[in-house]
């Protein structure tokens, strides 16, 4: 053999040796160095962890009536992977062929669904099918609560609907329809942000990791996955952690195409805890009904040419128990149906529900909207006047001295004599005028409340401002108001609660400095203090704060953090895991000598009749003493006030460019010997705000009268579930029923 041939053969040998060395190297790498990593992957390769969704806990009212539960819903799902595999078996082996088939299938499906009563667009189906938040192996829901016949139709045609299957799913169910919607809230699919926020909750210190905080799984086993349900609003959101169950897991062995080989382990899902509300669904339904009716009624009032119309688009009302701070009912209008969220809500619909132009039906105005307190604020100004010794100071007479109210108050600080110059006084801003300019005689503290004299409180407001510079705390009114819970969140167990505002010189200045253009004035003047004294200007409160402050007036000064939830209990157990007893925030001071006077002043609102033509009656007298047929009837009721006396206060909040807000806060039974009744054990407080609905005495007070009428006569109707309504009346729509009752029961 030639030498060159030998050399060339050796070259071949060298190549062979180096190739084999490479193979050995790689083999060593895979099987010795990296083996552990691959072993882990081999195990995860053949096991799948499936989750069975746990039912959420129920939400019940104070008497154990179920307000939110779960029901099984039949759903149609499509599975991308199964779809493609099935189609490939049928011979559709290219993407284009499959897409063509799919277009036809969706058209079929949409037509069948629509014919069965579920209006479905092909585009909806396509969007669901290509939803990237589902993996190819997920069953993507495309229709819910499907007609039985359609299930059979689809089930019998696997080749026409490949990958489409019928499944069952747990969804929220609302026996009372849209009632208490704002309290209950609603649930929806978890968003990316929420998912991240939830994952962020669980972190531990891991000194070995670069990232000092390592995310771990929820130790309670409730960790979220994409497409999980989560509470978005109301109790559903606030008690999400309690209501959410622990998902079950099923570890299964699978083969290479994902078919079940055998289960390895299984843990059953655990239902979430039940939340027991302090709400009484009977009262709740009554309150919502009356709120809606009061708004509708005021909308029908014809106003004078130059006045703002009563659009009455929205309102809120709260009923509380002043003895413990329990919220018995809480209504906000306009409202929504949490059932609309079950299938996932369309973007359009959601925007409509949160649009200010449609008055944000999703907004719970009782806790998340603020209103001027208006005249309902006066009792607190009075208390401040006594606590800080303003009564009897210079131009302020003592609380038991009747004064004459000319219908206006000229600010002493202005030092101008407006005698004879009414227009000039009004224009200068130095003359503060009663609502409607009414004058009245014999106004002491008690009557100032009953008749709602502004002048009486203008004086107090200005006195605080003037005296504040030397002897008296200039912020006495604010301090008392804060004691009664204004300007701070009440701590109710609901999300998005607003604190409202209780302005003072400092906040006024800070606001001006931050935005001088919007707030040109930086100095807190006497006018601001007089506005404060009658709850106008910058004083902003939530309806819940209002109810809560009057609860304190009713119970002698105990300010509670109101409860909407009584307890949380594990499923099928009466033992509470969390129990909210009365939560006392503080004792607010009500000067002893004033307590009876204020109470009597508030009782006078409903019980003081008009003594003569010149004098007014209690601002709520007509509403509480005029049943149908009475000349003075304003939609109110004739209450048996001797046996069930009501203390209350009207409020009429002026808002620039709009009609006034109509307000009333009252409690009962609360009597006084002065009015010939000795019952004084207040059990209910009601606060009502009707936006752009005129005088408090005309719409809010009658509404409260109607509710107290039923309560006092122990005549609150048992609330009917949607099923009961359908059965009893054969009427599908509760709104129609309400209207029917409202029309026949009201105007006779």
């Amino acid at each position, binding site marked *: 053999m030639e030498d060159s041939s030998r050399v060339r*053969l050796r070259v071949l040998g060298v190549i062979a040796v180096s190739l084999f060395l490479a193979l050995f190297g*790689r*083999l060593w790498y895979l*099987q010795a160095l990296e083996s552990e990593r691959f072993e882990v992957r081999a195990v995860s*390769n053949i096991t799948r962890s499936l989750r069975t969704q746990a039912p959420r806990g129920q939400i019940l009212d104070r008497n154990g009536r179920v307000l939110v539960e779960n029901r099984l819903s039949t759903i149609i799902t499509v599975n991308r992977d199964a779809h493609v595999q099935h189609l490939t078996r049928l011979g559709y082996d290219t993407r284009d062929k499959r897409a063509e088939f799919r277009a036809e299938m969706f058209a079929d499906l949409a037509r069948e669904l629509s014919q069965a009563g579920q209006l479905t667009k092909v585009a909806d189906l396509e969007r669901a099918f290509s939803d990237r938040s589902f993996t190819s192996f997920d069953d993507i829901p495309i229709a819910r609560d499907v007609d039985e016949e359609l299930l059979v139709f689809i089930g019998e045609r696997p080749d026409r609907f490949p990958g489409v299957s019928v499944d069952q799913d747990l969804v929220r169910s609302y026996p009372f329809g849209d009632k208490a919607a704002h309290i209950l809230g609603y649930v929806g699919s978890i968003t990316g942000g929420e998912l991240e926020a939830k994952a962020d909750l669980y972190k531990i210190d891991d000194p070995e990791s670069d990232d000092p905080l390592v995310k771990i799984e929820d130790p309670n086993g409730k960790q979220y996955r994409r497409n999980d349900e989560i509470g978005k609003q109301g109790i559903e959101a606030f008690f999400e952690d309690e209501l959410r169950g622990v998902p079950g897991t099923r570890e299964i062995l699978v083969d290479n195409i994902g078919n079940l080989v055998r289960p390895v382990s299984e843990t059953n899902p655990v239902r979430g805890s039940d939340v027991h509300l302090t709400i009484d669904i009977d009262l709740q339904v009554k309150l919502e009904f009356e709120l809606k009716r009061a708004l509708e009624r005021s909308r029908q009032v014809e106003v004078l040419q130059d006045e703002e119309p009563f659009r009455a688009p929205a309102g809120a009302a709260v009923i509380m128990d002043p003895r413990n701070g329990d919220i018995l009912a809480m209504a906000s209008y306009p409202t929504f149906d949490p059932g609309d969220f079950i299938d996932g809500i369309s973007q359009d619909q959601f925007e409509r529900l949160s649009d200010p132009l449609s008055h944000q039906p999703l907004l719970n105005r009782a806790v998340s909207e603020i209103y001027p307190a208006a005249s309902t604020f006066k009792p607190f100004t009075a208390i401040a006047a006594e606590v800080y010794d303003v009564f009897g100071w210079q131009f302020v007479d003592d609380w038991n001295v009747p004064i004459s109210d000319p219908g206006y108050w000229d600010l002493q600080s202005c030092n101008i004599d407006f005698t004879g110059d009414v227009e000039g006084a009004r224009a200068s801003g130095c003359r503060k005028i009663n609502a409607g300019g009414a004058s009245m005689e014999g106004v002491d503290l008690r009557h100032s409340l009953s008749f709602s004299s502004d002048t009486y409180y203008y004086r107090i407001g200005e006195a605080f401002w003037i005296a504040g510079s030397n002897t008296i705390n200039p912020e006495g009114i604010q301090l008392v108001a804060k004691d009664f819970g204004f300007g701070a969140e009440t701590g109710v167990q609901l999300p998005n609660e607003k604190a409202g505002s209780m302005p003072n010189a400092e906040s006024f200045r800070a606001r001006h400095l931050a935005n001088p253009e919007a707030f040109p004035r930086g100095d807190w003047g006497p006018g601001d203090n007089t506005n404060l004294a009658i709850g106008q200007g910058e004083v902003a409160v939530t309806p819940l704060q209002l109810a809560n402050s009057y609860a304190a007036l009713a119970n002698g000064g105990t300010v509670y953090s109101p409860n909407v939830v009584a307890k949380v209990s594990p499923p099928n157990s009466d033992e509470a895991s969390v129990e909210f007893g009365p939560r006392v925030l503080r004792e607010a001071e009500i000067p002893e000598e004033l307590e009876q006077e204020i109470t009597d002043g508030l009782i006078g609102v409903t019980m003081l009749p008009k003594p003569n033509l010149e004098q007014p009656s209690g601002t709520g007298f007509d509403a509480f003493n005029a049943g149908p047929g009475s000349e003075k009837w304003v939609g109110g009721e004739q209450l048996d006030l001797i046996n069930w006396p009501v203390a209350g206060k009207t409020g009429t909040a002026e808002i620039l460019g709009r009609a006034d807000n109509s307000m009333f806060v009252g409690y009962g039974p609360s009597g006084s010997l002065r009015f010939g009744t000795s019952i004084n054990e207040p059990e209910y407080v009601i606060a009502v705000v009707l936006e752009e609905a005129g005088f408090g005495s005309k719409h809010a007070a009658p509404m409260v009268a109607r509710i107290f009428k039923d309560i006092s006569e122990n005549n609150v109707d048992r609330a009917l579930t949607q099923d009961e309504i359908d059965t009893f009346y054969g009427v599908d729509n509760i709104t129609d029923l309400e209207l029917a009752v409202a029309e026949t029961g009201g105007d006779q």
Partner: protein
Amino acid sequence: MTTFRPSASGYNSRETDGPLWIRIDASIILLAIGLMCIGLVVVYSATRGVGEVAETGFLEKQLVFVGFGSFVAAVVAATDYRKARMAVPVIYAGTIVLLLGLFVFGNEFNGATSWYSFGFITLQPSEFAKITLILALSSWFASVQSRDGLQFVNVMLGLVMAGVFAALVLLQPDFGTVMVYAAIVAGIVVVAGVAMRHVLAVLAFVGLAITVMIRQGFLRDTQLNRFTAFVDPENAARYNVNQSEIAIGNGGLRGKGLFQGTQNNNSLVPEKETDFIFSVLGEEFGFVGGAVLLVLFGLLLLRIWRVAHLAEDEFGRLICVGVFSMFLFQAFQSVGMNMGMMPVTGIPLPLISYGGSSMLTSLIALGLVENVHAHRLR
């Protein structure tokens, strides 16, 4: 050819005289038997299924292939390669006919028309074409070398002979087998002593040809996908390699034990009885098993290389070089692909993978080597 060889140079009379069974290289047979035994065990493990009753159909067929292949190999070994040389043109022409016939009578499987189906058995002519290619190229280069040297024209003519096969197989399309042809051609061309500039010229031409084929969409998507899977982790074909790597890594040093591989039992690696057979071995017998296999292959190649070294004539040497290149490339490509270091191409692991055509081809190739060993001094 009849030069006297002193026994000191490594030859003894036993190798030149006596009956065939004495003149052959027994170690090649032993190594082949060793590899085939491993192959049978692994093929059985890969195909027995996970049902109550083990599936033995594949094993039985493979045993038939081994038996029949061994018989054919013995016949091949017994016929003096030099005497058979005149039959090479006939074999070449017959192979072309078989390859052309596929376009009329062939059966498609996995997107390639590479098989004749006779009911219970299928034949893959492109496998046998490897033997034809080895014989034809060896014969051609040996003769032109002795006649008028390796002129460029002669080199090109040899390449055209190979190119015809390659073209026909590419049309099936079966890119993997063409790569084996290329390895065979490369080995023979290098050892035959073709000038380096000719090699470079040919390489440039082939590179151009491949580029044009890709540009013209001549290569199917699936092939390009598979081919680029090992550099592109997002590629769908990467799945096979991933699963194969997991299987091998899962085996660790000692393996999961026979029939105990979860990747194997759950059929997570596709085509595990043929192209991905090494993953089954790696998972169930671990590094130890893989290393034994590689060592056996290494020794087999060494023995084939030795025969090439011993061969007295260029024809015999080039036959051995062709067989060497074929085994080397197929072993490296197949094992390398299983471990994710080579592209995904459907190349069986010689003597191990399930498949009659492949087994038969490997055994005939070894028969040829034994033939050269037995008849080199005659």
